[in-house]
């Protein structure tokens, strides 16, 4: 049975760790520490008498993200206690939002190949991350004991809950990728940081019982976890076995889902308002201010690039996936051919960055460098091959043009440097291009030569002389033609 024949329903709850200076409810640094349990205080350890105080920055992030996901933002929000006993929970309750989240009823359009689909956003709320548990000598099922590191306790999270709108693991993956990209544009999430996107998924097939799979990290993991779980459920069904309502955990190493517990009833967390935190007003003024800070989002940028630059979809999507690159592209396109800039950026530049395992913004590539590079290419001073060489040298650091240092130097710093390295086109290079052109444009003569008609070479030499307007030396032109034809 193929995936399409099964009725699959998937909903995601995604936790976005926020890269704020301090934790959600105390002044501890919100970052990893060398030693466990060092970025802690009485608040994030839940000591008696301590009280939470809200980091307002998190409200800003939550409102912006809600707006970007087209949610309606509630005017007044408050926090609740979700009570359950677990060693990673310093107060044995988690401060979260229950009745009234920051955002509700949004949607996001995802693109999977050529297909487009709207995914409903049920809600977006703020909550605190529990501590990290480290299972010594194994995983949760077989380790002898568990240690708890509260450095993570109180890290701010946004939980984004979707409607059960996904019908395939691919869609879920596309959603997470596009969500991550949107968050990157909002400067809330940085893929290279240690902050993660973690999802719990609810999956049911053919209207059967809902299975929750917890603890799926990243965007690649989601497709594997969901595919595994769907095939597990299908197998059960095929064998006439019941799919019971349960909570499972994704085991990343083995790429399987494992049963945590049966879910006979909904868990009861006995929610109450957190009386230590006051109601937060998200008034018109605040919401307007947040809205004005939202930059052009990826889907908007893609649309605009299409009409403004008329590039291919693939090129645009690749450009937009790196916000800084998209910005540089726009600037460079003012003085260079947009197609040239886009194909270099999404082709050779991306390849070189990947090879060196470095991101665009971390690399030595600057707008100024690219401006010079494209100019040399356009003026035909640099062949594609040598341009690639210049680019590689710049990225891997073997020959870097540091514009900051040479702020007052001549405009053609890159040209001078390329010249030094013997990378600029010489006359010989030029003639070799004429030779190529003559060969490419006269396939008949090439055929004749290949079938033994040596006279055909003379014809090609004549063509080179004519293209070069007499500049070429007939003898070397003949040698180069022969070489090319062999």
């Amino acid at each position, binding site marked *: 049975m193929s995936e399409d024949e099964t009725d699959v329903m998937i909903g995601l709850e995604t936790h976005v760790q926020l890269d704020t200076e301090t934790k959600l409810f105390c002044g501890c640094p919100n970052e990893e520490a060398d030693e466990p349990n060092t970025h802690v205080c009485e608040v994030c350890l839940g000591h*008696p008498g301590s009280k939470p105080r809200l980091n307002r920055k998190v409200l800003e992030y939550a409102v912006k993200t809600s707006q970007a996901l087209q949610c309606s933002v509630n005017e007044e929000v408050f926090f609740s206690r979700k009570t359950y*006993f*677990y060693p990673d929970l310093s107060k044995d309750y988690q401060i979260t939002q229950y009745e009234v989240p920051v955002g509700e009823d949004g949607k996001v359009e995802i693109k999977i190949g050529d297909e487009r689909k709207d995914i409903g956003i049920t809600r977006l709320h703020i909550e605190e991350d529990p501590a990290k548990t480290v299972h010594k000598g194994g995983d949760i099922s077989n380790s002898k004991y568990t240690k708890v590191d509260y450095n993570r306790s109180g890290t701010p999270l946004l939980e984004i809950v979707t409607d059960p709108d996904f019908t395939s693991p691919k869609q879920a993956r596309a959603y997470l990728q596009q969500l991550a990209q949107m968050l990157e544009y909002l400067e809330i999430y940085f893929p290279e940081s240690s902050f993660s996107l973690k999802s719990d998924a609810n999956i049911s097939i053919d209207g059967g019982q809902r299975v929750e799979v917890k603890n799926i990290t990243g965007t690649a993991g989601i497709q594997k976890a969901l595919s595994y779980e769907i095939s597990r459920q299908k197998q059960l069904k095929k064998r006439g076995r019941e799919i019971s309502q349960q909570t499972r955990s994704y085991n990343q190493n083995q790429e399987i889902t494992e049963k945590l517990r049966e879910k006979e009833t*909904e868990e*009861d967390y*006995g929610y*109450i*308002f957190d009386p*230590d935190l006051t109601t937060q007003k998200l008034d018109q003024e605040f919401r307007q201010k947040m809205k004005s800070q939202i930059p052009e989002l990826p889907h908007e940028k893609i649309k605009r690039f299409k009409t403004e630059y008329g590039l291919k979809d693939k090129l645009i999507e690749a450009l937009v996936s790196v916000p800084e690159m998209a910005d540089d592209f726009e600037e460079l396109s003012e003085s260079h051919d947009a197609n040239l800039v886009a194909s270099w950026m999404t082709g050779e530049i991306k390849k070189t960055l990947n090879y060196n395992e470095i991101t665009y913004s971390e690399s030595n590539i600057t707008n100024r460098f690219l401006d010079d590079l494209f100019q040399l290419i356009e003026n035909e001073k640099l062949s594609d091959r040598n341009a690639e060489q210049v680019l590689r040298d710049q990225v891997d650091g073997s020959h870097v043009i540091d514009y900051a240092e040479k702020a007052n130097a001549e405009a053609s710093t890159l040209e001078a440097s390329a010249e030094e390295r013997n990378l600029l086109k010489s006359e010989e290079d030029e003639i070799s291009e004429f030779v190529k052109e003559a060969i490419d444009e006269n396939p008949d003569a090439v055929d004749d030569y290949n079938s033994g008609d040596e006279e055909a070479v003379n014809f090609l030499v004549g063509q080179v002389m004519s293209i070069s307007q007499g500049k070429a030396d007939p003898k070397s032109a003949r040698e180069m033609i022969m070489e090319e034809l062999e």
Partner: protein
Amino acid sequence: MSVREVVEGDQKVDQEEFLEELKEKNEELNFMREINVGEDNSGELNNVPFVAKDAICTENVTTSAGSKILKNYTPVFDATVIEKLKSAGAKFYGKSNMDEFGFGSFSITCSFDTPKNPHDSERVVGGSSGGAGAIVAAMDKPLISLGESTGGSITNPAAYNGVIGITPTYGRVSRYGLVDYANSLDKIGVLAKTVYGSAKGLEVIAGEDENDQTTSSREVPQYADNLEETSGKLAVPKQYLELDGVEEGVMENFQESIDELEEAGFEVEEVDMPLLSADVALPSYYIMAVSEASTNLAKMSGMRYGLEFDPEDYEDFNEYFSEVRSEGFGEEVKRRILLGTYTRQAGYRDQYYIKAAKVRTKIINQYKETFEEFDAVISPSMPNIAPKIEDAENMDPTEIYAIDTLTVGPNLAGMPMISVPNGKSKGMPTGLHIVGDHFDEQKILDIAYSFTGGGE
């Protein structure tokens, strides 16, 4: 010697003498959880001694909140009120005994022996700030005693011990460092011998605190300096007069107080405040209180502090947590955790917890309406005199909860209130309760000041 004489007259408390008397009286009455003498401090309060209810965190000094589960717990920080008193020049003398986590009206649920009433050692000191009230009555010395009220825990021991007890508006005093009972109801206040002493203490501890987001940014008046005799209109809720179980002696003293107030120029009028009746305010209060309390106490699980066993002896964390909690908590605590878990459980939450929250809003509105016409609402502080310890121990929980009927209304509404001694019945003190509008502390202090005839 009084607090006023130490603060304004620059008299010095003989600290050695104080400590000696403290030890001696405590030996007899057990109102202290721990005597722990702090450093001399400089400031306006001129080393006036102060003690704190054991639910208020003190850095490096054991803070047990009356519970075995926190028997040897020493906080890593001082509560805001402790810091404030120290920097105003008060001298710390230790922690006073209380009902376990504040759950009680007589301090008989204290895990560290029951304190005894200075007026009659067979009788209770009240609760839950029982030790805080008894020490003021027992010590013949100037003293600021910090208490905490959730549903009446300052008024109650103030009345039973015949001292002044002021409970401020919710949010007037920082709760940072208070071991929580019910966060939306908890208020730290002051017990003292004189109105001046309570006003001075409150003035020092009140104010906005960035560590407690529920504190108000309103300016704190100079309550003590501002004290003056006043007059005005006082309301007596009809529902309190009709209440079953108010002792005759208590009612007689209250009637006499009304007469005195009228003589002093106050107008006293009976009003109808239906939501203060025993079947509305009391259950709403208890539902809110136990719902919050049951979440607050979840953290006491033997993981990070307090009572601990060897985890190796248990199958999993659930079994371990259960064992620590079963051993560490007393019976009344377990009762309230069970009640509170039930009242916020899905399926019951709407008809208990959510409904109680709505009733609270209505009670606030009813007070607000009354305060449009009246300056304060008065009543007896407690329906009875301090019962004998033996009798108290034999009461069933609902009887004990009913003791709070006169105090839960204003506590639920977050109104400021003060209890002032107004005579004796069978040799035991009784109290007059004066409740004001939000942030009207000065007004009720002035009324109390007038009632006690000004001065010291």
